[in-house]
């Protein structure tokens, strides 16, 4: 099959599953068939992606096929289609592989759900995979936007999966609001791009000023989708969704769509150094800020959520430094080890029926395999040499060398320390130490649960060595060099781990815990958004109310009053005297005659 056909298969297989599950409700309501159908679709997608990879390794070139979608004046105004090049192929592989692992894991994790909810869950997964693949293979920004909105919808639906729980419903709405707010940027960016260049291609080269506008607006969407400061607030709340959902959408793939967008639109961003500068700082600040908050979370998933924010900050910073490949590489490795971490966390949560770190502890003996998986993920995330995360994080840090007087570089080095520190804290608290109250009866899940952990552990360990290949696939330069940065990064991560052992091994607390906890519970950014929202909404409402009450109603009242007054005045015309009426008739006749004469 041609690459285009394969790409179409990879994209549309989950769509078929999703539509089938939507239309044929018995499939969905009985649960298990939905899972099988979605798994089959995902396997098909993954198979197509692997076939694409094999073809590419055999020397197949980039493939691109589009069809005109909206025509205007004989030429396509917008196109849809597929584009298979290094970036989209790698992304497709990552998405399908992680999705398959997560879905397999879900079969065990969601086993206790009622069949209807179980079926709905997998239908949404199919929808998500389709949406994500639309994003990945899209040949232009317009199609990417549609996929972007679709993944946002899937995210909303999956966060609110337990919609009967108020907190989940609120979290879903919050995620939707925040990302939609940011998506306005995407939409306006598209409009600006189209108005100025007449196309939705990222290769269309507008002027520098337009490029700054477009990329700036696109970056707003990236900030929302990839949970960057200050729009990151939805991601921790999104942990209300089922844990596998968090692993797939809110760690590995969907939140990385923002980074993917920037990688895709790199030609545009290259024209806008101003936007890149902003990205550099936003990414760095997010990396440090979120890492700090991850240090004090008591909910296992929220630690990982803030960690995701922080790692996305790394990627954005690398993109801001103009090293799209570094960001993309980190995206890839992060997808594996963060999915692994989340699934391992899901395994833990499934075992102890609680999210709270305090309920866990000493699980090392009860859940050996989960422990191993989590530790591998944690070490990879911490950037310990040899693990996947080390290579990509090193690349990100190297790409920042010398940028903006080394400040972002220093910030990210510090964030690397924090990362190792908070991951060390989680590992020690969850798997070592005294067993918590709920940890007594914990046991490993079945094969569907452990299998994905093993599968994901491999790339979490080893995908770092693929950097060179990935670079050739995306025609970027990559060479592992032993300079100051890798050494410092290694020192930082080992120091973080060591500090964690020293501090938390004895049951201590991190320094500044009180401050950070206050910061977390006070949640300034949340409040700022809520306040801004209230101010905006209530302000607009008040204004609208005023307009309605005094202008519109006033107009109405004036109309009524005027009619009354006019009637009262006009009543005087109605004297009731026939003479006066006759006079008026004469006046009318005179007027008519005059009109006839003067015309």
């Amino acid at each position: 099959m041609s690459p285009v056909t394969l790409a179409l298969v990879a994209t549309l297989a989950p769509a078929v599953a999703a539509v089938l599950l939507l239309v044929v409700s018995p499939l969905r309501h009985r649960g298990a068939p939905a899972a099988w159908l979605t798994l089959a679709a995902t396997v098909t997608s993954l198979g197509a992606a692997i076939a694409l990879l094999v073809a590419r390794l055999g020397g197949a070139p980039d493939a691109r096929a589009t069809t005109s979608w909206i025509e205007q004046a004989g030429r396509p105004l917008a196109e849809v289609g597929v584009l298979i090049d290094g970036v989209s192929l790698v992304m497709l592989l990552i998405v399908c592989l992680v999705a398959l692992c997560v879905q397999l894991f879900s079969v065990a994790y969601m086993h206790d759900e009622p069949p209807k909810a179980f079926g709905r869950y997998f239908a949404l997964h199919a929808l998500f995979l389709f949406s994500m693949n639309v994003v990945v293979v899209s040949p232009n920004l317009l199609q990417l936007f549609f996929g972007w909105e679709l993944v946002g919808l899937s995210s909303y639906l999956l966060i609110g999966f337990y919609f009967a729980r108020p907190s989940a419903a609120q979290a879903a709405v919050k995620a939707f609001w925040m990302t939609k707010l940011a998506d306005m940027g995407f939409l306006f960016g598209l409009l600006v791009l189209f108005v100025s260049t007449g196309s939705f291609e990222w290769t269309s080269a507008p002027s520098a000023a337009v490029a700054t506008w477009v990329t700036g607006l696109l970056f707003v969407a990236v900030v929302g989708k990839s949970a960057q400061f200050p729009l990151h607030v939805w991601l921790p709340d999104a942990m209300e969704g089922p844990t596998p959902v968090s692993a797939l959408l809110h760690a590995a793939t969907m939140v990385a769509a923002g980074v993917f967008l920037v990688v895709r639109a790199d030609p545009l961003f290259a024209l806008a150094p101003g936007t890149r500068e902003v990205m550099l700082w936003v990414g760095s600040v997010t990396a440090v800020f979120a890492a700090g908050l991850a240090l004090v979370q008591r909910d296992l998933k929220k630690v990982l959520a803030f960690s995701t924010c922080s790692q996305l900050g790394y990627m954005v910073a690398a993109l801001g430094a103009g090293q799209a490949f570094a960001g993309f590489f980190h995206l890839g490795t992060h997808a594996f080890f963060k999915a692994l971490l989340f699934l391992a966390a899901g395994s833990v949560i499934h075992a102890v029926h609680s999210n709270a770190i305090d309920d866990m502890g000493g699980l090392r003996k009860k859940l050996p395999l989960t422990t191993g998986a989590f530790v591998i993920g944690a070490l990879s995330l911490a950037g310990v040499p040899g693990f996947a995360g080390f290579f990509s994080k090193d690349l990100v840090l190297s790409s920042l060398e010398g940028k903006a007087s080394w400040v972002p570089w220093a910030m990210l080095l510090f964030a690397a320390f924090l990362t190792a520190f908070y991951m060390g804290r989680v590992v020690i608290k969850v798997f070592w130490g005294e067993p918590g109250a709920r940890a007594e009866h914990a046991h490993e899940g079945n094969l569907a649960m452990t299998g994905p952990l093993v599968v994901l552990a491999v790339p979490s360990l080893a995908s770092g060595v693929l950097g060179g290949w990935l670079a050739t696939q995306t025609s970027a330069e990559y060479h592992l060099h032993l300079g100051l940065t890798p050494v410092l990064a290694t020192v930082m991560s080992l120091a973080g781990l060591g500090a964690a052992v020293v501090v938390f091994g004895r049951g201590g607390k991190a320094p500044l815990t009180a401050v950070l906890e206050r910061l977390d519970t006070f949640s300034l950014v949340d409040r700022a958004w809520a306040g801004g929202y209230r101010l905006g909404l209530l302000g607009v409402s008040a204004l609208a109310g005023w307009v309605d009450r005094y202008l519109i109603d006033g107009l109405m009242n004036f109309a009524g009053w005027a009619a009354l007054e006019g009637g009262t005045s006009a009543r005087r015309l109605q004297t009731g005297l026939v003479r006066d009426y006759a006079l008026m008739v004469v006046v009318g006749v005179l007027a008519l005659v005059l009109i006839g004469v003067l015309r």
Partner: protein
Amino acid sequence: MTLTSCILLASAVMAIGVYGVVTRRQAVAMLLSVELMANSANIVFASFAHFRGGPSAQVFVLFALALTVAEVAIGLALVMLLYRRHGDTSLALASEARR
């Protein structure tokens, strides 16, 4: 005698009728003035019949005569009614809309 002169005469009678309608306050007097106006219209018809030929215009005069008679019959009936109610035929008394 020309058509113009006939129409001017009719206009004068019409204007006088209008003056009467507007100034008279007795209902019967108003009816008389209305008769003047109708008469002037008939004069115009007859003039055109004469100067432009054909019997049609004269037929219209006949119709107009009949209409006028009907109008006067109804008008006088109303005057009678008015008189019976108010003992007077001043139309100011009939201005019940003012109250």
